[in-house]
């Protein structure tokens, strides 16, 4: 178990290195000279230009810039912003740092049990009208993009019924629609998977045994069956979180939530590439970290899986 954990941790290094190289190269590949953009009015001032170039490290050779970038990133220094002269990127993204993960994780915390419940109910009533209508709702939940759903929800609940504020961030009522938007597709996705797994589990011998020895159906389902669908469900948490993180980009933009997602989008339009790249890098690290935790949990929960001992 420990050996497996260490190996997985080491396996992250090439991925993160690739992410850093990609973001660095992306920074280089973008069109235009950032210093020219910063100078704007004082474009004739050669001394100022030289000073800015030195401050941004752009006067050094490319390989040294790369080494400096990696060393900086390791210490939480993502360089300077192109939009706000000489302002460290970390100061810009610092305030919103936790908002996106908090949004994503709270949506996950609601969506997971909800999805399991819906999927289980659909599976127990397979092919009945309950099952059919749940499936239709789930397909709709997965299909309708969050910003399309947002226009319906905001129109009905914020503008027509006036139950919640239209946008903003800070109060509980302002978080209801944004989190709902993240919960709907996520719980639908989990429910669909859980329905499939549950149908498989309900056909197994140990469920037949549980029923044969006279256990009540409630206990058979919620204690024996659900526990066995949890393991395959857990492996998909990584994918789910990837979707949720992407979802925060849209949801934060719609509702003016000052998280990393909306910051990244603003930075793209302001051509503030160091900020964009830093956020992409942070999201990738967060995503990779969660995937690692899920893999470790997976092998811890299911004793049949001895990932550490498997010949690599």
């Amino acid at each position, binding site marked *: 178990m420990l050996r497996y954990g260490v190996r997985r941790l080491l396996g992250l290094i090439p991925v993160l290195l690739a992410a850093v190289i990609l973001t660095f190269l992306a920074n280089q590949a973008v069109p235009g000279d950032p210093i020219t953009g910063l100078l704007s009015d004082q474009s004739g001032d050669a001394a100022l230009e030289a000073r800015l170039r030195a401050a941004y490290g752009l006067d050094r050779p490319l390989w040294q810039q790369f080494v400096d970038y990696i060393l900086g990133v390791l210490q939480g220094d993502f360089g300077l912003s192109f939009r706000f002269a000489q302002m460290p990127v970390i100061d810009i993204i610092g305030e919103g740092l936790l908002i996106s993960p908090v949004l994503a994780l709270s949506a996950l915390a609601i969506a997971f049990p909800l999805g399991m419940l819906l999927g289980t109910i659909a599976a127990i009533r397979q092919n009945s009208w309950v099952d059919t209508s749940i499936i239709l709702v789930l*397909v709709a939940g997965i299909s309708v*993009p969050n*910003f399309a759903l947002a226009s319906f929800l905001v129109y009905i609940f914020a503008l027509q019924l006036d139950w919640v504020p239209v946008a903003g961030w800070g109060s509980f009522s302002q978080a209801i629609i944004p989190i709902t938007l993240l919960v709907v597709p996520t719980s639908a996705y989990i429910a669909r998977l859980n329905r499939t797994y549950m149908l498989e589990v309900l056909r197994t011998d140990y469920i037949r045994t549980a029923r044969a020895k006279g256990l009540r159906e409630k206990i058979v389902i919620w204690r024996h069956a659900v526990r066995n669908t949890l393991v395959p469900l857990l492996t998909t948490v990584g994918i789910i979180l990837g979707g949720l993180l992407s979802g925060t980009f849209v949801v934060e933009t719609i509702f003016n939530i000052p998280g990393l997602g909306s910051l990244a989008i603003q930075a793209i339009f302001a051509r503030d590439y160091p900020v964009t790249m830093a956020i992409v890098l942070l999201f990738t690290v967060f995503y990779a970290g969660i995937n690692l935790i899920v893999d470790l949990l997976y092998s811890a929960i299911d004793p049949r899986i001895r990932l550490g001992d498997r010949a690599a």
Partner: protein
Amino acid sequence: MRQVPVIGPIRRGLQSDFALRFRRSRNAMIGSVLVSIVLVVAIFAPWLAPYDYEQINMLAIWRPPGGEHLLGTDALGRDVFSRILIGARVSLTVAGSVLAITLTIGVTLGMIAGYFGGWAETIIMRTVDIIFAFPELILAILVAAVLGTGTTTVIIALSLVWWPGIARLTRSLVLSLREEMFVDAAIASGTRSWRILLRHLLPNIASPIIVRASVGVGFIIMAEATLSFLGIGVQEPTPTWGGMIRDGLAALRTDPHLALFTSLALAITIIGFNLLGDGLRDLLDPKVRDR
């Protein structure tokens, strides 16, 4: 288990068997009807649209639905109905291009990795792993940020995040088929590798790949709309559903028709493709077929 009653000749052709099961699947039928409507709209949009989608009329901005303009007009007085119709065309063009590119690249690289192995496999699968390490949409946004906005950018960005899945699936399918007797027989009789790949392996892996592709169309349309919504996709004056919803959301309080009707069109389209994709998967995937 649903038993199909055997009436008449037992040996029924694969085609008619498929058609029969397809017609029995309610969701697949609903999906195919919705998809057909969207396809017809996309193909004939320029002739179906009552107005020129680019025609600006500052004297008729934000007209409500009804009257001269079926679904009203937008901030520049352009006909919303016409723009939604053309939007279908834009959306499906991007999705079709992405699908064609990712299938070509993904199947080719996946077959090479699975059949030949060695360093080619290592390079291809490591690349796949690295791309998988990024959340899909975030990588697409990164690519769009570097390349600048536009239709080509969207197609490149979405192709980049979508081919690894196809490649991984293709590789695993080829890996399991490579040990089969018919491949050994082909090798033994001196068939060239590319011929084995094209003639013997490709037809055998086609159906799961078609399923994967059809399930993916809905995702690609959604991703394209999301990029357009964020403003880093297809640009004005070309109408995109994502862009129209963004414009409509800003005016939701006073003129909700733009956001609501466009959202409806987008939702129906993706629901249609997902129902069809799910239906095809249920029919073509032997693991879930007989449930």
